[in-house]
Structure formats: structure tokens, C-alpha cells
């Protein structure tokens, strides 16, 4: 089971860097833009990118996104680091189609990369609390948004608990065990972990009820900054349409 633990910790450490990425990304002007505007802008940028196979249009959106990121002070290097791998994967997957349609793999990869850049611009500049409040202001049901916020806050804690269960079992193990053994015994450990999660959920629910269960709402008015960003998004749509 040590293999399970080692692999998991190695992968998780890089995966969990995504948490609080907005905190350690270089502060940019985009950080100050209202999350509601950024969420809608992201959806618009992605829709513009994946609505066409015209390479000029897709490239236009990508260049605009890179320009916005650069001017507002977001690290292009960080964005590239978070996008290149999946863009390359997408390119390789569709590469054989270049035999019949040479331009397709390039356009397809550009679409995927542009969408990823748009999402990364949101992720790197917006805390999840702001995203949750933005979702709430868009009338996403409260029970769902509260659960999102709760799950986000508890993920690392729950992961730590899971690792400690696996580590405790591993430290008591004497035989090496086959893959099947690892899966079966690991499954039992995960079973214990889920039981603990139910108990924790019960306690958290009681604590929430004791304090009064309510999610805060957005009261902030849109600022001039938000209107400027909305203008950039509207201009991008306009320029995309008039090609």
C-alpha cells in the first residue's frame, strides 16, 4: 500500500497547489473586478472560442485574452504553465486528422487553449468564496452553493484524514500484498473514512444550525472597474462578430 500512499501524496501536492492560486498569483487589476462580471465574461469568452472553427476568430479571442492578462498584470508564464500540457494533449489526440484536414488540429487546439486561458484567468484572480457568492446572486439554489462552499473548505482536511487512516493501516501491515489486496484493504480503509465523513457531516450540521444557517449575500454594487471590464468583453464579442 506504500505505493498507493506515495503516488497519491506526490500527485496531490501538485494538485492542491490549485487551492488559493488566486492568493499567490501576482496581484492584478483583474483581482479587483467583481466575480459576477468575471464569471459571465469567462462563459462568454469560452463560448466565443468554441463556437467557431474559423481560426482567425479563435486566434482573435486568444490574443485579446493574452493582451488583457498582460496589461492587467497577470503572469503570462503562470497561465502558460497551467495550459500547455492539456493543449498539447488535445493537439496530439487530433493530430492524425491532419492527413485529411491539415488546419483542423491547429484550430481545435487553439479552441481548447483559448478556453483554458479564459478559465485560468477566472481561477487565478477569483477566490472560491467570491465565485460562490456570484453563483448565489445568479439564483443558483442556496443548498447547492452552501454545499459547494462547505466542500471546498473541507477538502484538504478530509484528504488529511484519509491519508492518516491509510498511513495507520500501512504502519501496521506486515505482508507485501498483491494489487488486489491493496484495492480490497484500501477499499475498507476508504469505507472507514466515509463513515467518519458522515459523522463529521452530522456534527457540522448541528454546529451550523446552532449558529443559524445562512450564506451571506452579495451587497456590493458594481464599480467603474467592472464596467470597464464589461466593455472589454462587449468589444471582444463585437470584434468577433464583425469578422
Amino acid at each position, binding site marked *: 500500500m506504500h505505493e498507493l500512499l506515495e*503516488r*497519491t501524496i506526490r*500527485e496531490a501536492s501538485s494538485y492542491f497547489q*490549485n487551492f488559493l492560486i488566486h492568493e499567490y498569483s501576482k496581484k492584478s*487589476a483583474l483581482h479587483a*473586478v467583481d466575480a459576477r462580471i468575471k464569471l459571465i465574461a469567462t462563459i462568454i469568452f*469560452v*463560448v*466565443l472560442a*468554441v*463556437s*467557431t*472553427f474559423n481560426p*482567425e476568430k479563435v486566434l482573435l479571442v486568444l490574443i485579446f485574452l493574452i*493582451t488583457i492578462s*498582460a496589461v492587467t498584470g497577470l503572469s503570462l508564464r503562470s497561465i502558460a504553465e497551467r495550459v500547455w500540457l492539456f493543449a498539447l494533449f488535445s493537439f496530439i489526440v*487530433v493530430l492524425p*486528422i491532419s492527413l485529411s484536414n491539415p488546419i483542423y488540429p491547429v484550430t*481545435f487546439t487553439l*479552441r*481548447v487553449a483559448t*478556453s*483554458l486561458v479564459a*478559465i485560468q484567468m*477566472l*481561477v487565478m484572480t477569483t477566490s*472560491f468564496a467570491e465565485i460562490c457568492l456570484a453563483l448565489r446572486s445568479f439564483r443558483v*439554489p442556496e443548498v*447547492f452553493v452552501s*454545499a*459547494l462552499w*462547505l*466542500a*471546498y*473548505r473541507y*477538502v484538504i482536511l*478530509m484528504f488529511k484524514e484519509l491519508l492518516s487512516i491509510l498511513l495507520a493501516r500501512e504502519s501496521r501491515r506486515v505482508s507485501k500484498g498483491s*494489487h488486489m489486496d491493496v*484495492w480490497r484493504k*484500501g477499499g475498507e480503509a*476508504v*469505507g*472507514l*473514512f466515509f463513515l467518519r*465523513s458522515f459523522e463529521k*457531516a*452530522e456534527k*457540522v*450540521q448541528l454546529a*451550523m*444550525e446552532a449558529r443559524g444557517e445562512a450564506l451571506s449575500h452579495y451587497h456590493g454594487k458594481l464599480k467603474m*472597474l467592472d464596467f470597464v471590464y464589461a*466593455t*472589454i468583453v462587449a*468589444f*471582444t464579442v463585437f*470584434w468577433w*462578430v*464583425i*469578422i
Partner: protein
Amino acid sequence: MHIPDGYLDLSVAGLFYILSIVVLGYSIYRLRGQKLTSLFGIVAAAIFAAQMLNWPIPGGTSAHFVGGALAGILLGPYAGALAMAVVLTIQCLVFADGGITALGANIWNMAIVDVFVGYYIYKALERFNRSIAAFVAGWLGITLAAIFAGIEIGISSSFGYGLTVTVPVMGVWHAILGIVEGVITAGVVSYIAAARPDVFEQKAAPGKLALGVIAAMIAVSPLFAYAAELVGYAEPLENAAEIIGLEENPIYEGLLPSYTLPSLDPYIGTLIAGVVGTVIVLGLGVILARYA
């Protein structure tokens, strides 16, 4: 199995958003007044954590546990679907794992097909043997979810490969990886059945009619996707423009019509128009940076 943006046609993505919202909306309605917020939140965090485990498989590679069928078995299909939807939404909006336009399809595959199918199979086989029922539920749930992902991508004309490639690739690969999912699901269910059998008894039996309707929705959703694709909305904005005649009679020619200038090579015209647009965005960006 998380589908990213750009792989699905917007019509297919939109359809699965609608289907997912209908089922999740009904699930919230079914569970109203039960004060389950923390259960969804904490169990979703637990599923998320369990998904991080990197299970070694023979040959040096590894597999991840998805947990859809397990969520259905432990929480019931409605709460299970909501917990999985929470996980997928966080993965999309925090980790950029799965696309924003594809979130509806990802929820459909992993939070609805996997959860409900896993639940149905477990309930059908439970009376024979609990462990085997959980194994089949975990294995078939994930395999079917992957097949649905293959269907959605294969039907979309945006993706260069058709159904004959995407469905076998996704289905066969996940049928193999799904064995790990099945074994772990069986391990978890057996352990909880032995340690806390009350967990399985606490859930109120969900309405049979609703479950039947959701099963029918799952069964016919590929046909819906096929119909959505037939409508030809691969490039919806351009198609809409074509339908209302904008292509023939542009309402606005732009400063640089079609990105070109008269008596200018079209490519150079496009380049100039692109540069002009970028300069304007640059200017607006500078204003944005100044206001911040």
C-alpha cells in the same frame, strides 16, 4: 473522464446542461426540508479526497476512483447526484478540470448516469450478494459514464473522430479501469455494511415513478444529443446569423469590413484589423489597470 471545453458542440453541451439541471433540480426538490447541506458538502469533500487516491494497477500505471456509484449506494441517488455535482463544479471552477460549457455533460455522466445506474444495479442485485452487487454497480456505473462521454464527444462534429472511435476507446479503457472502481466500491460497501449497517437503512425509499423517468431520460439522452446535433448548431452564433440573414445582409460592416481594406491583400487586411482590435483592447486594459 472530465470533458474539457472545445470537445463538445454547444448544442450537445446545452442539451446536457438542461438534462442535468432538470434531474438535479428534482433531486433538490425531493430532499427539501431535510437539512442536508452539510451532508452534501462534507461527503462531497470526502469523495473529492478519495478521488485523489492514486491506485496502483499492474504494469506500473495507476487509476483514480470516481465514486459515483458509491455515492448513490451510500446516500441514495438524489443526494448522491448532488454530492457528485458539487465535486464536479469545484473541479471545474477551482482546478479547471473539465470545461465550463461541458460542465452539464460532465455532471450528466459522472453525477447522474454513474450515480443512478450504480444505484439501480446495486438495488437489483443486493438481495443476491451485497459485495458483488456493489462491484457490478461500481464497474458498470463508471463504464457507462465513460460510454456516455464517448457518445457526447463522438456525436459532436467539433471533435474530429466519430462514435466508432470515441465510444470503444472510452468504453473499453474504462471497462478495464472500472475493475478498480468496482473492487473499491465493494470494499467500502462491505466494510460499512459490517460496521454501520444502519447507514443503508436510513434512506427513505425514493419514488419509483421518478426513478423510472430518470432511467428513461438516461436511456434516451444519446438520442436527444443526436437530435441536437442534427439541428446543426455546431457553430450556433454563425448559424443564427445565417438563419436571420445576417450573412447576406450584414447589419454593420465594421470599420474594416471583413477585416480587409479595399485594394489590399485579404490576409494583410485581416492582420491590420487584428492589430487594431488588439490595440483597442490594450487601451481598455490600461484603463482597467489604472482603475484597479
